[in-house]
């Protein structure tokens, strides 16, 4: 029997070779040894999304969040600064925060009563002079993620001692994020959906790196029900672009060639509230023509921005969904799904944006249930003895032949490499696995 270490090494060696021919060893989608390494090398090494500023608007507001499987408190402290505190008392390790969200000036440990303020400083130790007069409170604040930063209101943290800046990590992704979070003042509506799925976190991640190939087949029931976007139903002529080589992140977006502004399906009275000066002319033109847009920031933060409806009888509205595929064991994940709406839109519009987002992508989403329903079972095949003994690989070679429909756009104005007929290439999805491989084999890590 192969040891865990040898097994990971063998799979990574295989991965190094097979990526060159557009293949990925299927075992990585359900393997305990690989999973343990991922927690360490990926989630313990890269910037990971924590939450949006609008989820903790006031000092003292907090939400519990995880980095990999590790428990943290995302809190806005008294000075308005974001903190990502390790949810474990410095005394004997008990959770100091036990609610999912709330507002508090202090976290008091229920075990022996050590008390921390909301910036994590230790401010109270019962019977300190009698038992802990030697203890330096300044050195015993809650542990915190060493790197916390936000990009346009999106807060990330990194738990490695050394890390590049957040902007460096996001790289070319910022060009796209500006279109959603700088052009538009966004806010999260309510609480995120959370649900447990028997699939590896990498399955939806690879999909949201830009699997635009599955839409006509996978989502046929929703499209036939008349609740797809205007581009999915073919109601509007459009071109699909896929972005690869974008510092490890990837994007896909429809561009609708028309004088009518599109802005992901937001109507003129909402578009009026946008910060049009926030973008360069090139970005602004892409935003103006944008239909459905989706993408993923490495490692596990995906989004889809779409104009759609929950009933063919109703008006289409723009809705933005941000999703984090949380690792919860080999072949298992938890999905966390936030719905955003433009902050300055009317309350009625925000409500409609929420309803359309929820009805499309959520545990009960008309689109999402079919994705998850199809993925169900990949984990069994991936974890099989057969897959290991027979070098079973998944395939990412679409668009690599001589007559490929997907072609590089020579005069692309943004970062990365843009492909026209972006649904006909796997380059963006391959980027996920290339980045995964590089991070897993980066010796700076362990």
């Amino acid at each position, binding site marked *: 029997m192969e040891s865990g270490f040898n097994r990971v090494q063998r799979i990574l060696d295989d991965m190094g070779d097979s990526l060159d021919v557009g293949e990925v060893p299927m075992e990585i989608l359900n393997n305990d040894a690989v999973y343990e390494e991922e927690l360490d090398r990926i989630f313990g090494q890269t910037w990971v999304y924590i939450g949006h500023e609008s989820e903790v608007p006031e000092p003292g507001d907090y939400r519990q969040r995880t980095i990999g499987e590790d428990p943290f408190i995302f809190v806005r402290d008294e000075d308005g600064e974001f903190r990502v505190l390790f949810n474990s008392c410095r005394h004997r390790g008990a959770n100091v925060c036990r609610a999912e969200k709330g507002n508090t000036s202090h976290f008091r440990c229920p075990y022996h009563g050590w008390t921390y303020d909301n910036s994590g400083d230790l401010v109270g130790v019962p019977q300190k002079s009698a038992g802990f007069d030697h203890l330096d409170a300044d050195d015993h604040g809650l542990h915190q993620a060493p790197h916390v930063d936000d990009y346009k209101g999106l807060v990330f943290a990194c738990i490695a001692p050394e890390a590049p800046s957040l902007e460096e990590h996001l790289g070319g992704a910022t060009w796209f994020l500006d279109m959603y979070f700088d052009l538009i003042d966004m806010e999260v509506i309510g*609480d995120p959906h959370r649900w447990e799925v028997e699939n590896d976190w990498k399955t939806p991640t690879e999909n949201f790196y830009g699997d635009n190939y599955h839409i006509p087949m996978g989502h046929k029931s929703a499209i036939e029900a008349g609740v797809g976007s205007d581009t999915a139903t073919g109601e509007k002529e459009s071109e699909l672009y896929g972005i690869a080589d974008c510092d490890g992140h990837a994007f896909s977006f429809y561009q609708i060639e028309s004088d009518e502004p599109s802005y992901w399906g937001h109507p003129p009275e909402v578009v009026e509230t946008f910060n049009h000066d926030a973008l360069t002319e090139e970005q602004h033109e892409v935003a103006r023509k944008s239909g459905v847009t989706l993408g993923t920031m490495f490692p596990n933060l995906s989004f889809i921005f779409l104009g759609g409806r929950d009933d063919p009888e109703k008006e289409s509205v723009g809705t933005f969904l941000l999703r984090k595929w949380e690792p919860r064991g080999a072949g298992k994940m938890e999905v966390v799904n936030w719905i955003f709406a433009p902050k300055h839109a009317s309350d009625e519009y925000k409500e409609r944006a929420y309803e359309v987002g929820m009805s499309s992508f959520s545990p009960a989403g008309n689109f999402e249930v079919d994705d998850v329903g199809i993925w169900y079972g990949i984990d069994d095949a991936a974890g099989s003895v057969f897959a290991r003994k027979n070098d079973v690989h998944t395939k990412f070679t679409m668009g690599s032949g001589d007559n490929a429909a997907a072609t590089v756009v020579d005069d692309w104005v943004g970062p990365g490499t843009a492909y026209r007929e972006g649904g006909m290439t796997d380059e963006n999805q391959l980027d996920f696995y290339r980045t995964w491989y590089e991070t897993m084999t980066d010796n700076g890590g362990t």
Partner: protein
Amino acid sequence: MQGETTSSHELRHECEAFLYHTAELLDNRQLSDWHDLVTEDIDYRVPIRTTRERSSDTEFSDSSFHMKEDWGTLKVRTERMSSDFAWSEDPPSRTRRNVSNVRIVDDDGTEVELKNNLLIFRQQGDETEADLLSMERHDTLRRTDDGFKIAERLVLLDHTIIPTNTLSIIL
């Protein structure tokens, strides 16, 4: 039972029969027959629940939901679920709805407000372990010429993290 008169016993019995019937329609996947039994102005909500401190007023969100439906969106959902391309329900999941603890809250002659508990057993494919979904429902049943119809349903889940891959079923 405490304070239950013959007529209130009968009313509860009548409501139970309706809840059992609608549960049976859903378990048998007769989704359009079920949809015929909701009113055109139905308000159907499944709010998101979070773990809160005991002192907080509520654990249920007033702005975020797993489902927030009207007659039209329920029609879209039930029709889509019955399609040959609804992969999450083909092969369909096996469900058994156990309705219990029916409590009449109010009856104004036109509408009956009631609470009931629902435990759904759900399995799919070769699974041997069941996904269990537990909830309380606050329903308003309206008397119509065709008998009761569901005019309001508020589903209060006993879950913060939904313990099943897909909610491609009606609660």
